[in-house]
């Protein structure tokens, strides 16, 4: 009976390992910490398995991975800013992007290399990085992202929109630095 419990857990949750690792990597900022976080998260999930009644095993696990990641950050990197920025400063419903969302350069995204994408992601504030990771990279719908992060759907939408614009700016900065290598860059973020 105990073996059955174990096997059921393994069958349900081991397929989500890559997603768990990706989320942990983007929240903690490096793959070594991600490994530790994922191990701890899976153990926590196993111990809490009795209480699992969801029909969405990925969302349930991602919530645990997210919580474990932030606990990890608070424990080992207490100086790092992990608190969510004050949403009230930017609060609104649908965010109009016409003025601030720049039209991409011709084939901007296709010309960028993997390292440039990942550097840009690393530079994002963690609250932006996690919605990008959950929605853009893992392909989770708004509803699921909202459940995992613990905010209303509207907040997910506006946060995602700002994250995209912020990311685009970082990627554009990378590109222009590439094209004019002799320019001294005054600000680096």
């Amino acid at each position, binding site marked *: *009976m*105990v073996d059955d*419990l*174990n096997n059921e*857990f*393994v069958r349900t949750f*081991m397929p989500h*390992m*890559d997603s*768990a*690792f*990706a989320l942990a*990597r*983007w929240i903690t900022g490096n*793959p*070594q*910490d*991600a*490994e*530790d976080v*994922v*191990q701890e998260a*899976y*153990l926590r999930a*196993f*111990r809490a398995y009795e209480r699992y009644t969801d029909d969405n095993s990925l969302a349930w696990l991602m919530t645990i991975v997210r919580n474990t990641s932030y606990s990890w950050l608070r424990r*080992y990197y207490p100086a790092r800013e992990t608190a969510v920025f004050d949403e009230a400063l930017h609060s609104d419903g*649908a*965010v*109009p*992007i*016409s003025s601030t*969302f720049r*039209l*991409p350069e011709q084939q*901007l*995204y*296709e010309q*960028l290399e*993997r390292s440039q*994408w*990942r550097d840009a*992601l690393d530079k994002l504030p963690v609250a932006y990085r996690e919605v*990008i*990771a959950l*929605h*853009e*990279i893992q*392909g989770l*719908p*708004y509803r699921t992202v909202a459940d995992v992060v613990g905010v209303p759907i509207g907040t997910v*939408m506006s946060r*995602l*929109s700002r994250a*995209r614009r912020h*990311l*685009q700016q970082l*990627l554009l900065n990378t590109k222009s630095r590439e094209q004019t290598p002799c320019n001294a860059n005054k600000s680096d973020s």
Partner: protein
Amino acid sequence: MQCEQVRQLIEAYVDGELPAHEMTAVQAHLGSCGQCAELETGLRQMQQGLRQHGADSAPIHLRRQIEKSLRTQPVRSPPRAIHGWLGVAASLFLGLLIGGTVPGLWSVATHDNDNYQALVSAHVHSLMADHLSDVQSSDRHTVKPWFTGKLDFAPPVQDLSDHGFSLLGGRLEFIRERPAAALIYKRRKHVINLFIWPEAGPVETSEAQRQGFNLIRWHQGGLGFSLVSDLNPAELTTLAQLLQAKNRT
């Protein structure tokens, strides 16, 4: 639908989160508006780039470690509760088969319990500031001789940096009033204490958990060895195996 409205909905459109009638309306507009269509393309290309370059596969060894540590999890139901004590139970059973007279299960279990408790306390205490090492060095040729004159046995000190365990130093310890050597290793962020003292006993490892720490014990060459750490059981087992192998030579 006008450009301004479309621009407000374009992200939800690309994300497939619009109700059907809005999807259709936006789609129709995009068919005849170059600027808005470019916005859509840009969003999709960014998404594509993120999926391609932002995704990470979990390393294979991580998968194995997790499966292994799930299997060694102590379970609450009584029949499995002795799983972690299997080493003790097995050697007792063997003792019964061979000798007949063996210390009672409970007395031995209590003895082990006290030892485990003492080891964890020593480990926790060492994690406090300035308590970790008496001799701080990653060189085993510095750490090993330091114990001469302080202990009446020579603890083997191994260099395992090639395997990802770095030696931080050594410390004099007392485990239940017995002098012992403590060697401190580190694996990523995890501190590992290896306690060594003279004792005869079974070579088989026995594992336990106390207060969230993992412990592995074994005997070799007349010495008892105990590892204590918050490092996961799978990697701690690897360390135990490496130490056993190196101490054999």
